[in-house]
């Protein structure tokens, strides 16, 4: 059994449950994915499946990649990601070249969703670390800066890991235990409760939780 899927974040909306409560959901175009390769302990030292997602034209890929797909008789694909599996027996019956769709998920099931957060560029300390900053008024000309970054002659240096301005975003983030609210296999759509990292159209990896 394949325990994960690649997908694309489409955006967010909301659904009504039968009891009238509103659930915020992220719509993910999940699959169809192809099992491009199986990693085995004997050969690779770990067991996993390599999934491919989203078909592309031949000119989008280089020759080694084209060969990689042709060898297994799968279409040419844009994304290749591996889903690690601790117990190799789970992968019994999974063949290279097999198609995986969002039917592997059931409504109510919990999933972990991994993606890359939106890039925020170089950000100050208030946005990046949620610091308070300094006063805006009363003659202050010292508004959004970090303030003191240390003590005096002792320790005489700035502590390692001191939170400072810098690059923010574009981090690989996994949101765990999101509930699957709806599955539309014929449209390859997955509705997951809550937000998911990344901008619209970005690649997400959906894995069964636990």
């Amino acid at each position: 059994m394949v325990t994960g899927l690649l997908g694309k974040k489409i955006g967010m909306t909301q659904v009504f449950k039968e009891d009238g409560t509103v659930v915020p959901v992220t719509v993910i175009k999940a699959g169809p994915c192809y099992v491009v390769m199986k990693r085995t302990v004997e050969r690779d030292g770990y067991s996993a499946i390599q999934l491919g997602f989203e078909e592309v034209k031949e000119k989008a890929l280089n020759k080694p990649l084209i060969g990689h797909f042709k060898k297994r008789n799968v279409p040419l694909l844009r994304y290749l990601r591996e889903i690690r599996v601790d117990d190799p027996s789970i992968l019994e019956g999974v063949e290279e070249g097999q198609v995986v769709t969002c039917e592997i998920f059931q409504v109510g099931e919990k999933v972990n969703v991994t993606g890359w957060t939106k890039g925020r560029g170089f950000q100050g300390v208030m946005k990046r670390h949620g610091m308070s900053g300094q006063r805006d008024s009363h003659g202050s000309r010292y508004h959004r800066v970090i303030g003191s970054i240390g003590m005096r002659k002792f320790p005489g240096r700035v502590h390692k890991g001191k939170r400072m301005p810098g690059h923010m975003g574009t981090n690989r983030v996994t949101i765990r235990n999101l509930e699957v609210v709806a599955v539309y296999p014929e449209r390859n759509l997955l509705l997951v409760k809550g937000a998911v990292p990344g901008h619209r159209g970005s690649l997400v990896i959906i894995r069964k939780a636990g």
Partner: protein
Amino acid sequence: MSDDPIIELEKEFKESLKKGLSDFKVGDTVRVNFRIIEGDKERVQAFEGVVIRFSGAMHRRTFTVRKVSGGVAVERIFPLYSPKLESVEIIRRGRVRRARLYYLRKLYGKGARIKEKKGIRSSGE
């Protein structure tokens, strides 16, 4: 773009949740019958006031009803397509020239009255 899956989904949600409510508009005085859960029982609670705005699109559409109860103004937002929304009775049609009646918040008593609209009465959604 009609190939946006979200637009398609929302259209479907809207269709599936449609229930032929009266075509009340901004400025109308309405009685909203909304199901609430009280302890372990469910009953219908009525909320009567003036519709001051609609907001949102598709099945996410909501409307706000304002009433003054015992000198305290209360505004309540209802999701138009909520399964809990039983019905909306139109008590009085109002003639207003704005889509959002925020100016009512500054007015009270006689100043907060809305002229009644006479004539045209259409039905449907």
